């Protein structure tokens, strides 16, 4: 039976892993490679890495990070942040990504979704959707890392991206991000009821029970978080254990030890 997934989200700003609150990037946590090493050993089902850097010129550094982490991650990896063309998608896939996440460019140029899905298959294209309540207290899709309103309602937009060929939705509540109040379950339900592709929930997890609620009440297929996994030993392992004990159908939590060879032969150039 298909299992629900637990997915840590690693947010990278100018080469460093950061925490985020309402899309404001706060403290630097450390290096992405270290984070991936821990998560890979601590029973996660997948890893998402997003580049949120605004300064141009840091993109090469981000590509270096992806190459580095892919050598150490033996669970699927989704890479995203500012992806605008299929050439870069291809580059990320070559570097070891399994899926890519598209956000701003999907709204600016919806054909990009269909082009990418046609070229790489729907299963490779995750559309990331950031949602915030607007001034009239209605859900609205925001792009440009939460800065630009689009006038789109999330339900209307997810139906559209599914039609265009997206394979998965990564749904973030900007209002809940970093606030530890749990997922926006109402938003999650609305989205999950209106698509037939899998939905990953993100934003607001403050305790392990929030993951359970995201799946059981919100109807998400997979649950993701960032801040809560940092600074704690075996964080993802413990979260997984909680989910299994709550009766969810997950891969059993186990510690994995995949030791890389003493003298790995990385002869290939990228």
């Amino acid at each position, binding site marked *: 039976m*298909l299992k629900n997934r637990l997915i840590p989200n690693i947010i990278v700003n100018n080469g460093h892993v950061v925490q985020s609150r309402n899309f404001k990037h706060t403290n630097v946590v450390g290096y992405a490679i270290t984070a991936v090493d821990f998560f890979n050993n601590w029973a996660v089902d997948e890893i998402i890495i997003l580049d949120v850097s605004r300064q141009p010129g840091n993109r090469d550094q981000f590509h270096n990070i992806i190459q580095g982490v892919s050598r150490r991650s033996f669970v699927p990896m989704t890479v995203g942040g500012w992806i605008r063309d299929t050439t870069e998608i291809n580059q990320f896939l070559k570097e070891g990504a399994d899926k890519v996440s598209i956000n701003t460019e999907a709204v600016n140029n919806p054909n990009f979704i269909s082009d990418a899905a046609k070229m790489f298959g729907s299963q490779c294209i995750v559309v990331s959707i950031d949602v915030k309540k607007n001034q009239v207290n209605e859900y609205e899709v925001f792009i440009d890392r939460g800065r630009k309103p689009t006038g789109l309602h999330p339900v209307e937009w997810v139906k559209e991206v599914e039609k265009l060929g997206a394979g*998965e939705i990564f749904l973030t509540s900007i209002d809940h991000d970093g606030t530890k109040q749990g997922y926006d379950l109402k938003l999650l339900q609305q989205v999950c009821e209106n698509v037939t592709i899998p939905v990953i929930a993100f934003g607001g997890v403050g305790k392990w029970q929030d993951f359970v609620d995201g799946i059981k009440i919100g109807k998400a297929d997979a649950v993701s978080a960032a801040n809560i996994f940092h600074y704690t030993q075996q964080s993802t392992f413990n979260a997984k254990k909680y989910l299994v004990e709550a009766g969810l159908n997950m891969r059993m939590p186990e510690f994995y030890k995949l030791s890389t060879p003493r003298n790995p032969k990385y002869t290939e150039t990228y």
Partner: protein
Amino acid sequence: MLAIVDYGMGNVRSIYNAFNLLGEEVCITDDKNTLSSAEAIIVPGVGAFSDGMKNLREKNLLEILEKEVIEKKKPYLGICLGLEFLAEKSLEGGSHTGFGWIKGTVIRLQPNTPSLRVPHIGWNDTMVLKKEGLFKEIQKPTFYFLHSYYLKVDESEKNIITSICDYGGNQITATLQKDNIYAVQFHPEKSQSTGIKLLKNFLDDIRK
């Protein structure tokens, strides 16, 4: 040396890394001579069936694969799209010809339960039909799947299927083996230690 076929698409890096972890000498190549001298040929794949076939054709890799795998009986490992290519045809976005090494058609997943979504993304259990070979010493055969289409093997060749995965009534061909041809629909290179063990089993099996 193991050769991963580079046809311009596919997660070649992940597979390279996985074999590297096993301490294997492995290369990513589209060179005829390298493929000819390799111990085994690995065809990965992320992408659309027709684009993949087109790239293989344009790089003249189809003839090389045919020669090495069918004529010279070199071990072949197909992963995801590398499994689907084996079929006679795929109905992904029209009707497209495959290698035709296996009797069957690649069709779209149509689970009978609305809660089961397409693409089929995530960890799922496989039912192992043949334990020797790829599944040796694997206790919990749970792997990462990432696909919208699957290979439906023709009745006459059903015996080549070594494991299946049930997805809402669709009996997905999860793994198959026909002589020197091995193929898996899921992603062993991304299925943690279980997947790495399966890749090790592949190597053990072709070397025994």
